[in-house]
């Protein structure tokens, strides 16, 4: 049943795409088949797997760095009002610094290397994680924490059984939009100072106005994300939210 839904979802998406490509035929909006052909060609040449692999690695690295640092800071700020009041302007500042500025400064200070690239992406994303997790920490129900302190839960138990389950929806929101934001920033980072990766390729194709190739790379990335979503995230999420009363 879920499989059928997903398949029909993809089918509908393809159909919408095909039809609208038919209605507004344009070089800048290729039909699915054209994109698929480009995908095959780019895959056969080895370009797509190579650049996609590198980009995925960067996304993954920046994602873990950003989620861990951002969650820790966010939970801290959300549970300590005085800290939050002090650092809130900082968070707002870093939240709104254009990606460009951070990336350029990172490259200039730390050189055009992987560490600078991934660090720049993480710095761009961390404030977003902070903001989301901070809301989560603020919404924590103090009664469960009280129960835990009465029953002398250890720090780890408290984290696993009290904090994380309550933060789960915020964590889910932060990671879903997080992956996508990181991917978008990685594109910029690769545009500004790397010689490989999907962002590098996409910009090249943009200069040639080869939208089919851009879409082929984009969809390859989306496919990987969807694969992870269906095989890892959803089962995990299903298990961790099983306790919620299902709607009547």
């Amino acid at each position, binding site marked *: 049943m879920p499989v059928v839904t997903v398949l029909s979802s993809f089918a509908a998406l393809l159909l919408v795409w095909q039809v609208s490509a038919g209605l507004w035929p344009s*070089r800048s909006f290729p039909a699915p088949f054209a994109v698929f052909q480009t995908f095959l060609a780019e895959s056969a040449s080895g370009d797509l797997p190579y650049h996609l692999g590198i980009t995925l690695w960067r996304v993954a690295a920046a994602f873990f760095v950003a989620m861990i640092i951002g969650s820790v800071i966010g939970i801290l700020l959300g549970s300590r009002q005085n800290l939050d009041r002090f650092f809130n302007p900082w968070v707002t500042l870093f939240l709104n610094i254009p990606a460009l500025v951070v990336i350029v400064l990172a490259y200039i200070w730390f050189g055009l290397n992987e560490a600078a690239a991934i660090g720049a992406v993480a710095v761009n994303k961390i404030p977003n994680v902070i903001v989301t997790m901070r809301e989560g920490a603020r919404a924590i129900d103090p009664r469960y924490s009280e129960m835990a302190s009465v029953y002398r839960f250890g720090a780890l138990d408290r984290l696993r059984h009290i904090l994380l389950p309550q933060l789960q929806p915020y964590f889910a929101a932060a990671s879903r939009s997080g992956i996508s934001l990181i991917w978008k920033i990685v594109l910029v980072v*690769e545009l500004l100072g790397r*010689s490989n990766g999907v962002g590098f390729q996409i910009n090249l194709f943009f200069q040639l106005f080869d939208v089919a190739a851009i879409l082929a790379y984009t969809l390859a990335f989306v496919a990987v994300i969807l694969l992870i979503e269906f095989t890892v995230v959803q089962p995990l999420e299903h298990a961790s939210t099983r306790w919620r009363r299902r709607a009547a």
Partner: protein
Amino acid sequence: AERMHVGVLKFGTVSWELDTIKTHGLDEKNGVEIDIRFFASEDATNVALMAGDIDVMVSDWLWVSRQRSAGEDLTFFPYSTSVGAMMVPAASPIKSLTDLKAKKIGVAGGPLDKSWLFIQGLARDRFGIDLADENEIVYGAPPLLAEKARQGELDAVLNFWHYCARLEADGFRRLVSANEAARALGATGDVSAIGYIFHEKWARSHPEAIEGFLKASGEAKALLNRSDEEWPRLEPVVRAEGRELDVLRDRYREGIPNRTVEEEEEDAARLYTVLMRLGGERLVGPGKTLAPGTFWRVRE
């Protein structure tokens, strides 16, 4: 042989030349080993040079002059005189700059683009028209503007030369090129708009490398100028074929600089004052004249 790092746009015109150098081993022949670093945007090459990741990149002399006034020791060696041009569809009623009234004009490179300033200056000096005031100007990304011109949303588009060449292959014609405008504003010949840029300090400490590199570049240009066989080989790099490739080839050849550095520098200095008048300090920076040393002199 000494190693040097050159940063270029992957599908930019410079990589045609570098590809030719590498294919024919012209770098080894001149005693250097060129390591090509590909980037996806010009900004990226800027950042890379600033971050010390590459030794040589391509940009224009005005930028160099401005950076020099700000204390950087960058210097410039002519690479190409090809510049942008104002393009209109072949069937367009627009025949000259005087027809550009209440039109939608796309301009790549922004309001401080040199080509755009020259053409504005020409329109003002010769016809008394203020192009920016009397038309709707759309600044935007070069590929997007080229596409918009093809779509017909723009009445005219000022774009970088290789986009213009491709447009030409698609049936556009040149209304006026920036070089014509520059000449009308006092230049004595085609001035190299862009060139190889590097730190003076690096060049002084690596004389063999820079000399070898510039020699190799000259030889590659000569080869590309001379031989039609070279071009089909470049198809995957140029990403064009057929008529498009032919137009690109012809325009490339036209753009090979043939004057001495001294002549170029004199003209550049002249144009600098024009640009100062047109673009103000905002464009040229605090320097009143072309910063001395902007043009690199090969040791005789």
